[in-house]
Each structure stands twice: as structure tokens, then as C-alpha cells.
């Protein structure tokens, strides 16, 4: 390979590889405190007490035999690479979620909790 074509290749690489890298993090709603779940007693705790502990739910759903309060906190992490003509992106969104089930007397009968928001990661954009 002569020096002229070598320079040309280097210039081509520099031209088309020029770009930048970016990353970002986004959170929705307040973080949920798993420790507060210990204060709840199935069959005794009321919807009012749950509201006092966790605040306003993100969503309320009418169920066949009562209601469900949904508390959500999400963490999304994104990475992106911009080259001259091509860009690659990766976006990972994970949730902390607690769902309380209440009977028709607003007594909590069950709850389910998942805490996965911390598993959100800055993934490889390629």
C-alpha cells in the first residue's frame, strides 16, 4: 500500500468515525421504600393507611371484588453512539412496583411487590 492510499484510508476512517457518545438516566415517580411493607398487615390495614404510608398511587384499578392501588417507580438508562452517518442507541427501563389489593370494605387483602429498577443498566448500544 503506497503512502497516498494509506493517507486516504486514514482520512476516510477519521471522517466516518468522527462522532460522539452519550448516556442518560430518567426516573418516573418517587422511589418506593420496601421497608414500609413491614408495617402492613393483610386483612387489617386499610386503603387510607396505605395512602398515608405510600402517598397517592400511580394508578387505581377497579377489580371484580374491590380495588387495586398501583405504586410505580421506574428507572430508565440509555446509551447512544453517533457516528457520522449511523447512530446506535440502547434504552433499558425497569420498574419498582407494588400493587395492593383491597376488598369492598377497603381492607388490604393481598399485595405484590417487585423491585427491579436498580437492575436498569447502560447497555451496549451496538
Amino acid at each position, binding site marked *: 500500500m503506497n503512502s497516498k492510499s494509506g493517507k486516504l484510508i486514514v*482520512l476516510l476512517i477519521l*471522517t466516518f468515525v468522527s462522532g460522539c457518545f452519550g448516556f442518560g438516566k430518567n426516573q418516573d415517580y418517587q422511589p418506593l421504600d420496601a421497608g414500609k411493607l413491614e408495617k402492613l398487615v393483610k386483612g387489617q390495614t386499610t386503603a387510607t393507611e396505605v395512602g398515608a404510608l405510600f402517598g397517592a398511587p400511580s394508578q387505581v384499578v377497579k377489580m*371484580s371484588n374491590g380495588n387495586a392501588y398501583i405504586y410505580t417507580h421506574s428507572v430508565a438508562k440509555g446509551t447512544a453512539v453517533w457516528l457520522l452517518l449511523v447512530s446506535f*442507541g440502547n434504552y*433499558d*427501563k425497569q*420498574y419498582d412496583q407494588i400493587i395492593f389489593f383491597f376488598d369492598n370494605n377497603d381492607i388490604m387483602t393481598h399485595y*405484590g411487590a*417487585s423491585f*427491579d429498577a436498580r437492575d436498569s443498566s447502560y447497555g451496549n448500544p451496538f
Partner: protein
Amino acid sequence: METRFNFFLKIWRAIFKVLVISMPILIAGRLLGGCVTYQVVRNLEGTDVVAPGDEFQVGTTTLEDTLALLGAPTTVVELEGQDLLLYQQIVMRQKRLSVGLPLLNALGTNISFSGSRGRANYDTLALFFTPDRILRQVVFEKGTSQPYKKPTSK
């Protein structure tokens, strides 16, 4: 004195050659950079949804058992006297190609073309419960194992 002059002349010629070669490439690159873009984006939402095992028995498994095993569902819905718990993971892939002519911006017009192709695959576990909160039906679909490109049949 003349030797030094020749030396600088050689350097200047070398720089000029590099500029002559590189400028059209750099200019073309900068111009293309504004008008041709290809984006590849991957979007993951939610954790893995696994196929239900033997622990889920219609008629015996309760809502409490399910919540203890799987945690909070992605969403809950009431369907004509039944309660539906949905566990879901979404994997979305999108590709987009844009072509435009930014040089025409100066003239007040802009011509651009773009095309995109995306696909969202879902892993879904749907659990239906009676009003007494006993498991009535289980539906599972592993959508993320589907290829990005739809296989063609001959």
C-alpha cells in the same frame, strides 16, 4: 539558504497534497452527515417473564400464591367478573433511514425522505382469577424469541 528554502517548499507541497486529497472527503462527509442518517435503536422494558411451572394449577393456586412467587404484575385488569394479572417484558428494535438535502435550507425549501422499520416483541404471562381469587386460566407467550425479520416461507 537555498537548501532550507527547498526543505520548506517540500513540506508545503506535502501539506498541499494532503489538503487536496482530504478536503473533498471532509466536505462530502460533513454534508452527508447532515442529510443521511441511519439509526438503530433497541429498547428493553421490564424484567424477564418465565414460563409458568407446575406451581400454577388452575383451580387451586391463589392470588396470594401468585404474588408471592412472581411479585407485582406489570398491570391488573378487571374483565367481566374476572381479574387479570399481566406480567410483561417488551423488547423493541427500530431502524430508521433519513435522507435529506440540507443545502436547500438556504433557499427556504427542504426535501427529505425517511423510512423506518420497527418491531416490538412481548413476553406475556396472563393469569386470570375468579372473584374468589383462585386461578382460572393461564396464558403464556414468548414473543421475544421471534426473529427481528419475519421469516419468509416458500
